[in-house]
């Protein structure tokens, strides 16, 4: 066990965990930030996507010991009250079915739009291919990303 000082959603946290613990389980089990989902544990589904220094990463394979003082943003910290353009576009297009993968989709999409504010369809597909949705909401995710791009 070791003490880690983390900066998550702009707040400082101190936690005592084994240094191999993935960020995902620190968020979920130790900090109660359960918006970040467990889907596969091997970076294949994207449900656990968070931002590390503004880049989308799969928190299920990132050990807590590698975070250091980098800033972590989870879905809970993406916006004050759900008003990020991507979140608003998700509601406008009524994207979700079961909703389980959607926080990961939103975190991936929001990081992607920061890098590429006006993506074409192919670029959206390339960026989002790592996020699985078993319910099959892909067409609406794509539309929502386009709407968010227009409104950002």
């Amino acid at each position, binding site marked *: *066990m070791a003490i880690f000082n983390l900066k998550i959603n702009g707040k400082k946290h101190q936690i005592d*965990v*084994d240094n*191999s*613990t*993935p960020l995902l*389980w620190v968020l*979920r*089990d*130790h900090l*109660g*930030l*359960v*918006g*970040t*989902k*467990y*889907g*596969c*544990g*091997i970076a*294949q*589904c994207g*449900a656990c996507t968070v931002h590390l220094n503004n880049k989308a990463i799969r928190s299920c394979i990132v050990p807590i010991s590698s975070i250091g003082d980098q800033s972590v943003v*989870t*879905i*809970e910290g*993406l*916006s004050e*009250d*759900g008003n990020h353009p991507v*979140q608003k576009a*998700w*509601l406008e297009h*009524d994207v*979700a*079915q*079961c*909703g*389980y*993968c*959607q*926080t990961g989709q*939103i975190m991936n999409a929001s990081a992607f739009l920061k890098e590429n504010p006006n993506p074409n*369809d192919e670029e959206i*597909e*390339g960026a989002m*291919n*790592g*996020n*699985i949705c*078993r*319910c*099959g*909401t*892909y*067409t*609406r*995710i*794509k539309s929502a990303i386009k709407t968010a791009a227009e409104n950002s």
Partner: protein
Amino acid sequence: MTLLKTQYGRRSFLKTTAVAGGGMMLGFSWLTGCQTRPIKEVMEMPKEWFEINSYLKIGENGVATIISPNPEFGQNVRTSMPMLIAEELDLDWEKVLVEQAPYHPSNFGMQFTGGSRGIMSRWEPLRMVGASARQMLMAAAAQTWNVSIQEITTEKGILYHESTGLSAEYGEMASIAAEMPVPEEVVLKDVNEFNLIGTSQKNVDGPKIVTGQPMFGLDYKKEGMKIAMIEHPPAFGMTLKSFDASEVKKMPGIKDVVLIKSYKDGFEKGGFDTNAFPEVVAIVGNSTWEVMQAKNKLKVEWKQFDTYSEITKGFRGNTSSKTVPSGLESTTEHKLQIDLLASKPGRIVRKDGNPEANFKSASKIIERSYSAPFLAHNCMEPINSFAHFNGDNVHLATPLQIPAFIIPTLAASLEIPEENIHMDITRMGGGFGRKAYASYVVEAALISKKVNEPIKLIYSREDDMTNGIYRPMYQATYRAAINDKNELIAFHVKAGGIPESPLFANRFPAGAIDNYLAEDWSINSNISIGAFRAPRSNFMAGAEQSFLDEVAEELGKDPIQFRLDLLKKAEENPVGKRNDYDAKRYAGVLDLVREKSNWNEDNSNLKRGVSAYFCHSTYAAHVLDVEIENGNPVVQKVSCAIDCGIVVNPDAAKNMAEGAIIDGIGNAMFGEMTFKNGTPEKNNFHDYRMIRMSEAPKEIDVHFVKNEINPTGMGEPPFPPIFGALANAMYKANGERYYEQPFLKNREIKG
């Protein structure tokens, strides 16, 4: 107007229910946190709630809380079911909050998600809930104003008395209405009087979903709760021999390692108690990661089991014996077994006319065989359940489809009365049939009982994918006899699988062909199977609709016109009396998809396939356009026509159709679980291929047949026919027929 007695579900109208007041589960703040706010407005919360019935509370300021009874797994019943109540109650939808009901069948009826039956089964009962509440509010106003109830009208949460000009918001009358007797009979609206039903309303849970608030079973947390994981046998055909937990118990954060035996000896299983691994080892610890580490280190020995029988109870109380064969099965061997059975005569299930003679006299016979593998459900939320066994009762918070089916099992395994089982139903991160088989709740409860702590059981993705309840492996051979006048004179289907046959002997084209034969067969297995989105239909539709495409081509007919001609015969002069479809409605979706896809215009540049199917009381037809790009099939567009009767929430229904189409294309192209010596050969998403965004159709265009027929389901029906539409379109694109799923396995796509 429809006058209805309220006896049906009358117990549900009891006003003094604990649940309506948030009473029964009030101790668990997590549940009250499941209340959902509509999107558009931030409402002032009422100071006081008045319980009108078990489904409804109205605040003094007119805000209403509707308790949604059924489990939600993405079909959006938490929006559409409250809409049914709000419609008859003339509520202002902007002032409605939705809460999830806990499991409480005497208040909420059959709380069931499966078989696309939710809206269908709740259509009248929930409207009656709303209509009787409205009547009680009107009675309150009539008494207060001293006028006749007949003269009172309602609109958007306001009561009016025209001649005196009096009006009041529902909130003002709620306290008096709560004391009014439940009406003996109520009047339901006619279809043309609907204001809310038939309008698109956004998912009431949308704001919580996009902000990541806790809703799912996996998100459930209770003070002092431990995490539990299980180790199940690595192969079907195996069971526990022994385990050594001495090292693991010393690992950090680990509290206990216990043996869990899910069923008492001699327990008669119900139909949804399927569980290939009734004995598992459970590891309990402080955090998920610590338990995962311990699980990797746990020493367990497994052994093969001998063939055994188990007694299962049917729904009507009948019992039957089922043999579970010993052995470690492999896919290669399964294929050989299937080839052998498929080559022999099957069990005749239906026979019309004289198929044998007609096949003998045919000038041409077309014979084609289709197959599909086992499939894993792969819900994005892995299996989990919270359980807190406390002396003589248990509290559960669980993502599951059919609570009622697991309650008797829980009572027997925990040795407590059923009424001591309290269950919160969490949102499910997908279900697709998998979460109808809730043996994991039994495991969770037994673990809690053994370690005497509240625990949350979590399956790893690997545990989830290798635990069974798969879609069975299927095979079907179709034959069509054509005479020298180029007419289809006989039809033969023989279908089987491991461990069940997918045959529906009385479905189309039965009833449309004079000489018809349907046979089935099956091969027993110890690999556990279960319902998977549109069971059996999810294979038969693709096989049948691909075959009909080949027959139409052979006859030189347009594939839609060919189907319509058969349906015309089935409508006007049906063969046999037990045909499980309405030929006119079936033809209706084909007509609509033909029109909406511009099928009859010059489409020589499009590579398109058609397919239609009827299952779960709803009709669906698809036209799919595909292009082969760089060796990959790219679905350009799917045009879809559905007849599910009245569409309660059109955008939500459209979402269901889109999801079914994408899920179906994914499973058709990639879905497959294989076995070697009993071991599932895929255990996570690196080797189990799921459809990704770039492989989804570029456009989906959904249309509904407009009619006033009571609504039927949307969860399953659009799924099965897409397999056939894809296969038929791929044929147009590259001249190859697709007989074996997954279509893209080890196969270079010509284009």
